[in-house]
C-alpha cells in the first residue's frame, strides 16, 4: 500500500470515529473529556490554519491572534450589540480578518527573518490596545453574551455540549479538508516553492507576492472562523483573551510540536498539548497556579532541543528506517 492510500484511510477512519463519538452515551455530552476533545479539535483547526501560511509557505506569523480575535469579535458583536445571529457575524468577522491580514502583510512581507517576527508581535500589541480603548466593541471589559435559547439557531448550549463538539468537528473537517486539497493541487506546489526559495520560484514564473498574500488571506480567514467559535463557546470575548501574544504563540507552539508544514502535525500537537494543559490544570491545581504552564514550557524547551521537527519528524524517522535512506533527508 502506498503512503497516499495509508494517509487516506487514516483520514476517513479518524473522521468516522470522531463523528460517531457524540452519539455514544457518555461520548461527549456534558463531560470534562467532551470539553477537552472539543478544544483539541478547535486548537488543531487553528494550528492548521496557521500552518498554511507559516508551515507550507514558510512565512512565520506571530500575529494570528489578531485574525482570531477579529473573528471572535465578529460573532460576539452580531450577538451582543446587534441582537442578531452568530451565523451572520462569523463569516463577516472571517472576511474582515482576511482583509486586515492582507493590508498588514502586503508591506510586512518585505521584512526578513526576525524583523518580520517582531513586526508581527508589534501588530498584535497595537490591535490589543486599540480594542481595549474602542468602546463600540466593549473596550477593556469585552462583550458578555446575554442568556440565549439553546440550539443551533443561536449556536449556544448550556448543558448538552454535543453541538459545540459537532461545530468544532465541522471547523476541523473544513480546514483540514482545504489543506488536503491544497497539498495535492497547484497552489500547494506554489506555496512550497515560495518557501524553499522565493527567487527560484519567481524565476520559474510563480507570482510569489500573490501566492503569499492569498495564503495569508485564507489562513487569516480560517483563523477568524475559529475565533468566532471560541467566542460562542466561552460566551464572552475580551482583548487579552483573544488578541494576546500568548494566543498567537498557541498557534505556533501546537504546530511546531506536531510538525511544521505537515498535514497531521497540527492535530498531533493539539492532541498532546491541549489534554496535557486541561488535565494538569484540573488535577494539579493543589500545587498552586501556573504549574500547567511550567510543564507546558518545559515540553516546549525539550522539543526544541531534542526534536525540533516535532512528532511528525519522530514518526517519519521510525517509518522510514527500513526504507529508502535518501527519503530521510526530506525530513521537515
Amino acid at each position, binding site marked *: 500500500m502506498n503512503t497516499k492510500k495509508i494517509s487516506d484511510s487514516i483520514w476517513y477512519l479518524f473522521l468516522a470515529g470522531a463523528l460517531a463519538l457524540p452519539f455514544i452515551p457518555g461520548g461527549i455530552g456534558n463531560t470534562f473529556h467532551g470539553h477537552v476533545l472539543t478544544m483539541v479539535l478547535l486548537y488543531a483547526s487553528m494550528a492548521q490554519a496557521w500552518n498554511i501560511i507559516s508551515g507550507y509557505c514558510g512565512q512565520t506569523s506571530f500575529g494570528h491572534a489578531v485574525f482570531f480575535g477579529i473573528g471572535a469579535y465578529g460573532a460576539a458583536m452580531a450577538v451582543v450589540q446587534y441582537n442578531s445571529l452568530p451565523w451572520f457575524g462569523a463569516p463577516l468577522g472571517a472576511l474582515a480578518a482576511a482583509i486586515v491580514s492582507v493590508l498588514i502583510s502586503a508591506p510586512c512581507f518585505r521584512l526578513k*527573518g526576525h*524583523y518580520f*517576527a517582531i*513586526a508581527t*508581535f508589534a*501588530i498584535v500589541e*497595537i490591535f490589543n490596545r486599540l480594542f481595549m480603548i474602542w468602546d463600540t466593541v466593549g473596550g477593556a471589559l469585552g462583550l458578555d453574551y446575554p442568556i440565549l435559547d439553546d440550539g443551533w439557531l443561536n449556536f449556544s448550549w448550556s448543558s448538552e455540549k454535543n453541538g459545540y463538539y459537532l461545530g468544532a468537528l465541522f471547523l476541523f473537517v473544513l480546514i483540514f479538508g482545504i489543506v488536503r486539497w491544497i497539498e495535492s493541487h497547484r497552489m500547494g506546489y506554489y506555496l512550497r516553492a515560495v518557501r524553499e526559495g522565493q527567487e527560484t520560484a519567481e524565476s520559474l514564473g510563480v507570482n510569489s507576492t500573490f501566492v503569499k498574500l492569498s495564503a495569508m488571506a485564507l489562513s487569516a480567514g480560517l483563523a477568524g472562523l475559529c475565533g468566532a467559535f471560541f467566542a460562542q463557546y466561552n460566551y464572552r470575548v475580551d482583548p487579552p483573551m483573544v488578541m494576546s501574544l500568548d494566543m498567537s504563540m498557541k498557534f505556533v507552539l501546537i504546530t511546531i510540536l506536531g510538525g511544521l508544514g505537515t498535514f497531521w502535525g497540527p492535530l498531533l500537537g493539539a492532541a498532546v498539548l491541549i489534554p496535557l494543559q486541561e488535565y494538569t490544570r484540573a488535577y494539579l491545581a493543589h500545587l498552586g497556579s*501556573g504549574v500547567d504552564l511550567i510543564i507546558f514550557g518545559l515540553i516546549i524547551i525539550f522539543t526544541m*532541543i531534542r526534536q525540533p*521537527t516535532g512528532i511528525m519528524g519522530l514518526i517519519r524517522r521510525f517509518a522510514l528506517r527500513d526504507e529508502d535512506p535518501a527519503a530521510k533527508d526530506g525530513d521537515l
Partner: protein
Amino acid sequence: MMSSFLQVLLDGLLNGLVYALVAAGLSMIWGVMDVINFAHGEFLMVGMYVSYWIGFFLNVDPLYSWIAAGIFLFILGAVTYRLIIRNSLGKSAMAPLLATFGLSMVLKNFCMNRFTPNFRLLSGTILEGKTISVGGAILSVPQLVTALFALVVLGVLYWMLKKTRLGWAIQATAMDSEAAELMGIRTENIYLLVFGIGGACVGITGGLMTSYLAVYPEVGSLFSLIAFVVVALGGFGSIPGALLAALLIGLVESFSGFYVAAVVKYVAVFAVYIAVILVRPRGLFGW
C-alpha cells in the same frame, strides 16, 4: 506650558535610557548569534526579584544589590546558553526563539507559583521618593540614577566591544564564526560570555529598578516587547542604534501619553516602530 513640555521631554529621555539598558543585552545577543532571547523580559523580572528579596531579607539597598542581580543573571544567562541555546542553535531558524519562549513561560510561572502574583515594592530605600527640580521640571531621583547607570553601562559595553581584544573577538565571531574559529578564537566561549553579559546587563537594570518599581511575575512582558522593538528599530546588534532607538521610543511614549491620551501611548510606540521599519527594513542603523 513650557515647563510641562520640558517635563515630558525629560521623562521621555529618562525612560528611553532605561529602555536602552534593558535592550542592550538583547541587542548584543541578537547581533552576535542572530538569536532572539524571548526570555529577556523574564530575566529582567528575575533580576528585580533578586534585588527585592535581598532588600527584604538582608536590608541591602537596590543601590548596592544591583551587583548581586547582575552576577546572578550573568550565571543564569550562561546556563541558559549551555543548556538551551547551544542545543537548539542551527536546528531550525525558530528553535532558539521558541525554546527561550518556553523558558520565559517556566520562569514567569515559577515566580507566579512561588511568590504569588502580588505587586511587591521595597519600602525605605535610600532614593525613595526623592526628586530634584530642573528648570521647573520635577525628576524622580531613582529613575535618574538608573538612567545615568544606563549611560555608564552602555559606555563600558561600547568601549569593551571596540577597544579590547575580547571585544574584537566578539565582533569577529559575529561577522563570521568559522573564520573566527580558524583564527584561534574559542567561539563557544564567546557565545557563553555574550549570553552571560546580556543577562548581566538586564540583571543590573532589574536590580536598580526595584528602587522605584514594584516587582510582579508579569513585569517583564511589556519591557521585553519594548526591548524587541528597540533592538529591531536600532538595527541588528548596534549599541548606538539601540540607544538612539530607545530614546526615540521613550520620547514617543511620553509625548503621545501626555499630548494625546495615556491609553494610546503604546499604540503610538508600536505604530512608529512599524512605520520606521517599513521605510528602513533593517532598522535605523542596520546593514
